[in-house]
């Protein structure tokens, strides 16, 4: 295993004689986005909060960077782990700048260092510097969520814990911000543990997904593993409703490459060159654009093997891929 950043070993949390989290274990590697997925009450938020000790585990061991989290003061631990929750937790009595500066002030940074870092960060997060003096009450939902993220990222913690970070946003803003966040190199370098109940969000952002139910882990694995090799009926049922959509989100053209048929070139078609790393759903979307039939030119980097494919070809390749699983 590449270097492990967060590790839970047989962790149990009991609330009033009822186990909220029951004997779970998993590890998160550096740079991974690890998703805790499940319905409300499944124990995913409790699991997240045990990592930065907002809740103390009843049994079991939690290691962060190889060190038992109980070995250092909770406040010190937390200052080195970014924590993002829904946007309405910005401090209403602090301006945007003061909100972002909370952790630097706790870490006793000098003013210049803090200001330089804030200016750099808001630029990356596409926040206007005019907003720095503004209070959270005056921000839009999207702006507030960016400030919230800036507050968690400002001290550049290697680990980020996120609890339904997009939960309070409307669907449109939500997917826009999600896409934007996914592009941030500030986030790409981080090890992220994120809680969500949104299946689509989980598959879009997660490098690995941990599906939980009633305090237990049902399955942990890469998105494709959960779809094509469900560990039990619960996992199968959980994804059955949007299974096809999820498959198209998860699989890339490279995954189904052997099954893609090379179509003969036609003079009536438009051609577009695309990367083989795009998902099937993205590829399908491109073939349907402008309501006219369009053929795609695909380049395979490794072999310089070129294939010209159509929408029907993609559907065929997927069904062949599925049969071979």
């Amino acid at each position, binding site marked *: 295993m590449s270097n492990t950043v967060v590790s839970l070993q047989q962790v149990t949390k009991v609330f009033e004689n009822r186990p909220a989290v029951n004997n779970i274990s998993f590890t998160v590697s550096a740079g991974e986005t690890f998703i805790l997925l499940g319905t409300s009450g499944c124990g995913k938020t409790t699991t997240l909060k045990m990592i930065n000790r907002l809740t103390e585990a009843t049994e079991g061991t939690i290691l962060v960077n190889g060190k038992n989290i109980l070995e250092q003061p909770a406040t010190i631990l937390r200052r080195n782990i970014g924590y993002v929750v829904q946007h*309405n937790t910005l401090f209403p009595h602090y301006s945007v700048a003061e909100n972002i500066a909370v952790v630097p002030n706790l870490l006793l940074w000098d003013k210049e260092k803090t200001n330089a870092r804030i200016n750099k960060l808001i630029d990356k997060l596409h926040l206007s510097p005019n907003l720095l003096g503004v209070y959270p009450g005056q921000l839009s939902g999207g702006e507030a969520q960016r400030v919230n993220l800036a507050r968690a990222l400002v001290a550049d913690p290697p680990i980020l814990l996120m609890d339904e970070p997009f939960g309070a946003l409307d669907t449109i803003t939500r997917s826009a911000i999600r896409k934007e966040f996914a592009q941030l190199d500030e986030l790409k370098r981080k090890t992220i543990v994120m809680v969500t109940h949104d299946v689509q969000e989980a598959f879009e952002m997660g490098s690995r997904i941990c599906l939980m139910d009633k305090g237990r882990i049902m399955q942990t694995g890469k998105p494709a593993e959960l779809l094509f090799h469900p560990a039990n009926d619960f996992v199968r049922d959980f994804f059955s409703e949007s299974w096809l959509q999820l498959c198209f989100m998860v699989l890339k053209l490279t995954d189904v490459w052997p099954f893609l048929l090379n179509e003969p070139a036609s003079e009536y078609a438009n051609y577009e060159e695309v990367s083989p790393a795009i998902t099937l759903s993205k590829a399908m979307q491109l073939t349907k654009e402008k309501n006219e039939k369009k053929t795609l030119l695909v380049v395979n980097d490794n072999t310089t093997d070129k294939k010209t494919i159509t929408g029907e070809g993609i559907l065929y390749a997927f069904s062949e891929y599925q049969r071979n699983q």
Partner: protein
Amino acid sequence: MGETQTFWSFIQEQAGKLLEQTLQHIGLTFISLLIAILIGVPLGILISRRTKLAGTVLGIAGVMQTIPSIALLGFMIPLFGIGPKPAIVALFLYALLPIIRNTYTGIINVDKHIKEAATGLGMSDRQTLFKVEMPLAMPVILAGIRIATVINVGVATLAAYIAAGGLGEFIFGGISLNNTNMILAGAIPAALLALLFDFLLSRLQHTTLKKGRVVFVMLPLILLLSAFYVLPSLGASGLLAGFTPEFMGRQDGYLGLKKTYGLHMRIVVISDAVMYKAAQEKHLDVISGYGTDGRIKAFDLVTLTDDKKIFPPYYCAPIVRKQTLEQYPELKNILELLTGRINDSVMTALNYKADYLHLPPEQIARDFLTAQGLYKPPRNGKKATIRIGSKIFAEQYILASMYTQLIKGYSDLDVQTKTGLGGTKICFDAMTNDQIDLYPEYTGTGLLVILQPAANKIDSLNQDKDAVYDFVQKEFQQRYQISWLQPIGFNNTYALMMRKEQTNALNIHSITDLVHYVDTN
């Protein structure tokens, strides 16, 4: 003094005193508020951390709030004596509940997700409290302080009852003296203070959320305002006199003492309810009492001889609405059954039973009437209802009870009592407004408080009990259609009193002796 004074001329005349009382009032309010904040806010924080304690602490503070303010001041005297100390403690207890409760509610109601975010970012419990919870709870805490301030400005008027000063001196003096200007001179500034502080604190409350630094502005400000009270009271020693607000403003009281005897000594203003006790417990040396008060006997006090005769006769007689007498002529003979039966020492003994033995006035009245062979069982007549009033001290309660029992036993009239009316003005106004039919009044009071004739007229009557009686009887009949019946016989005049052992030790037996002693020491 004869002509009617305007409000403004009163204010101008008393400007110095008004300023002093206002500063005392502000000082009293804020020194107690300061202590309440220093104790209430930490207590509120504590119970927001240990919510199991919340019920108990809020319960105790709530009980304090329900004790009537005068009673609370009364409880304080055995513990802290008289003067500012018990007043500050009582005001502090009143201010405590709103401050604790609002601190607690303010902190508890801060969004729990915001608290969790603070903890999650790595704030310690203390940092979460001071950086997040307190600033967010501040508008609620300030609202509590605001309520406490307004309560304190109001309750501080009662501090005048226990010699702590403040605007209550004018208010209660004015009520006793039937002087509306004096009442207003106390009440208007008190109301303005309440409005002003409420306004200032509301401004503070609305600017805080963003600028969270209020606390640093407020504490020094409150300290400064508190200082108004502490500074003037430093220094001074010697004999201390405690006079009632009424006595302070009267020609036949303190004003006369100054003019005729040239008395100049340290004086505090105090309610007669606590004055005797304070004298007995040596908080006061000289007090202005009433000649027949039972507590003279109970507390081993003696009256000083009025050798220059400034206290006019205060013979007690029932006064009755003329209309009532005409409707029920039998009343006159019934009410005059007491005439000649109660002299000064009998009245003192009766008062002693009430003030010191704590017997109910009804029983004292009945025992006395029985012993005099006057008592007859009630006839339970329903012919009409006679309304009897009384002022708020034992002697009046006892007399009202005697009249009640006599009227019920000797006629078919029923009686309704309205006892405990706050002062001469309240009793008299109740009568002229047809709220009561009769109450026992004193000739001197009728002359000086109600009629208020020109000074030369008073001089011509002065000291002669029959002349005063004839004058008030004639004037009341003419001006107010109120009849004075025959005097009962005792003379409850003002007197200066001291502890018996102190008069012996200092060899003070008359007011002249006292003036001499004060001037030479």
